[in-house]
């Protein structure tokens, strides 16, 4: 009975998938669970996965809210590139060596650069939100515009070059450690925590769900659905912007062409893996973070157990397919019917 209660929890199947993946890793890769304490930092495959999953989790959190309102935002990858480009430009890409020692020079103070990048990311989200809520475009088309144009904007900003950042304090975002754990994990945790508090301590969660389930009725009930939809897209933009900062800090550069490529698809995948339906309404923030972890664990697994690079996308697709089947109540009940029928005997 308790097993049934447990298995009906919406996070049960994503958790099972993650545990299975981790288990497979432990079997094929004996060093997987080993953690080392070096220079006051934890090192190990698991820590690595957490670190790399952080940007995806950030984007997936923003995407969850958008999807919950019946929308979708496929421009997040482009926003990642734009945000990275703005931050890199404002910090500056010069290597200054004085007396044989590198000095840290930035064009604008780092805080200004970070705020600047996030403001630009918010404007990207605002553009998307206005197209969806005010102009009334289909979300996939509205955000497709920025998905395509955003790459161009990012490349315009960087002049078609990869901008290398030499300002060491900036590297902390994507490479630094706090209390032994990667700093990026804390960033993702803080964003998740903030959104979680907003959803449970304000009416935001109720409004978003209500809009996602029935926008017309929500409007009649006085929910300011357009305003909320715009805000959700702005937040999604900001979340992608933060992810852009983490990614560019991690690779110490901004590449307008390649930063965040296909990230939108991974983010949508993370949201669906976490049990949120693309049709809007009920959603799970924690599920999306789990989804991001599943995707990153899967990627790491594929590399660590030595799947040939030419087939790794196929393996990834197969695993995602299996997880989605596990999640489907229809599929599970079909399996149950097939497996349980002989045991109970035929009905007539």
């Amino acid at each position, binding site marked *: 009975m308790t097993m049934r209660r447990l298995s009906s929890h919406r996070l049960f199947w994503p958790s099972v998938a993650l545990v299975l993946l981790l288990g497979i890793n432990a079997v094929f890769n004996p060093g997987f669970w080993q953690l080392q304490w070096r220079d006051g930092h934890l090192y190990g495959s698991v820590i690595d996965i957490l670190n790399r999953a952080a940007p995806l989790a950030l984007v997936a959190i923003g995407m969850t809210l958008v999807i919950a309102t019946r929308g979708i935002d496929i421009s997040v990858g482009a926003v990642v590139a734009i945000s990275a480009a703005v931050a890199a430009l404002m910090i500056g890409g010069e290597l200054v060596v004085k007396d044989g020692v590198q000095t840290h020079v930035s064009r604008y103070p780092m805080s200004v650069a970070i705020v600047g990048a996030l403001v630009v990311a918010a404007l990207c989200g605002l553009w998307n939100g206005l197209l969806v809520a005010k102009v009334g475009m289909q979300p996939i088309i509205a955000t497709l515009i920025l998905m395509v144009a955003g790459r161009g904007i990012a490349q315009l900003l960087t002049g078609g070059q990869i901008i290398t950042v030499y300002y060491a304090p900036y590297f902390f975002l994507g490479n630094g450690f706090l209390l032994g754990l990667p700093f990026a994990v804390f960033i993702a945790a803080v964003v998740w925590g903030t959104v979680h508090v907003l959803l449970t301590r*304000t009416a935001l969660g109720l409004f978003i769900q209500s809009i996602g389930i*029935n926008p017309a009725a929500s409007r009649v009930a*006085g929910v300011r659905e357009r305003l909320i939809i715009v805000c959700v897209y702005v937040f999604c933009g900001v979340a992608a912007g933060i992810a852009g900062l983490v990614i560019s800090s991690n690779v110490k550069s901004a590449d307008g062409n390649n930063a965040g490529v296909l990230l939108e698809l991974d983010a949508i995948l993370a949201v669906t893996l976490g049990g949120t339906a693309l049709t809007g309404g009920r959603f799970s923030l924690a599920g999306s973070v789990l989804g991001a972890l599943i995707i990153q664990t899967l990627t790491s697994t594929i590399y660590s157990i030595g799947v040939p690079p030419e087939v790794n996308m196929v393996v990834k697709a197969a695993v995602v397919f299996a997880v989605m089947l596990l999640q489907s109540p229809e599929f599970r009940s079909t399996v149950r019917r097939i497996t349980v029928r002989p045991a109970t005997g035929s009905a007539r």
Partner: protein
Amino acid sequence: MASSVVLEARGLTRRFTGVLALSGVDFRLLAGEVHALMGQNGAGKSTLIKVLTGVHPADAGELRLNGQAINPTSAADAQRLGISTVYQEVNLCPNLSVAENVFAGRYPRLGAAGLWRIDWSKMERDARALLARLNLDIDVSRLLSSYPVAVQQMVAIARALGVDAKVLVLDEPTSSLDEHEVARLFDVLRQLRAEGMAILFVTHFLAQTYAIADRITVLRNGERVGEYLPAELPASALITAMVGRELGAAAGRNARTTETAGAVVLEALGIGRRGQLSPLDVTLRRGEVVGVGGLLGSGRTDLARLLFGLDQIDSGELVMDGAPVRFDAPSQAIRHGLAMCPEERKHDGIVAELSVRENIALALQARMGLWNFLTPARQQTIAERFVHVLGIKTADLDTPVALLSGGNQQKVVLARWLATEPRVMILDEPTRGIDVAAKQEIMNEILRLAREGLAVLFISSEMDEVVRVADRIVVLRDRRKVGELPGDSSEQAVYHLIASDA
């Protein structure tokens, strides 16, 4: 009558998560009869139909078709056996042609084993023949959406007849039809009856039951109350059977004096919108029920939408408490103390997958804003109060509102607005598609609130209802106001006013 029993059910029982929806129900349907199934919302009508048509399996009891025990496992299965159903909501595809709709899922094919292409000409020929059986001569190659709802209803029936149907189940087929269309539908039913079809007919309209039914089965609380012949069962006895108690004489205006009508709350001066409503004046006072009389398409709903800010006025102005106001969205109207039960409950009213509790709290929360959060505990308190006051039947407050019966859903929408303690309540068809008792309860509640000072704008297509509850009646025709009548006018007076100005 010598006709034989076509469909027979004995001791049907069905539970939903512990709640007994049907309890040992016996039922029989004869060939060549129209059998009306009546009962309040939640009495088990829908469940019975769903068990008969294989949508839900019965937990206990047996089902016989022409004496053979059957056990349909799906609606398609039931249809193969000869039990066809036309559901309440016309579930056809408006973007397909009439013929395609009639044969959807079973297009005639050409070639060996139907492997070659669809036989379009046969399909259209057969569709025309089927519709001719219903006295309907239309171009079957045109899109379904190009025909009025009444015709679409006929197409739905034709679709059900397409297979060799012995039993036709109609779940509230008349709720979206006007009088003329109902008469036409009844002609068709009489003809099918003459051909020996067994027809099960669910409706809330007593008059229709007496107009067409040969036999009436009444359900209450999942149990069969009895099977009656209409001639032996006067309307009052029928209502008593459905409700289980004597209905008090319809509480009406008379219970209250017009002196309670007080200060003007909301005044609409020449409000209108091009293409929707010609400029008109309406005044709503404290404690007064203003009825809106008019036929479908007369601008009733448009008036409600303009007042509530769902559509924007492009002429005239709204005055509240002596100061002009402007509503660009419902949220602004709500802040000024307006509330509206919309006409389309499913589309504009309930938020289906949210719980009863969340649905009731929604408008109040929206008015209080994002930050001033009603905790689940406070939502619970508010919801509990209104579930009690309005007698909403629900397993618990966390039940998704979609699982409630229509009347209870409507009460939830009403509760949502009462929770905001409104000063002006706009009710657009608040009693459509719900049973007599729930209707009465909702009307009584509205009148009680009006006595306490609520200003009510009451819109209904049932003129007797409007006449009964309203203190004043604003009469609309062709999207303009043709006059106002005092509350004690007769239905004929309203119709006369609608007709006279033509």
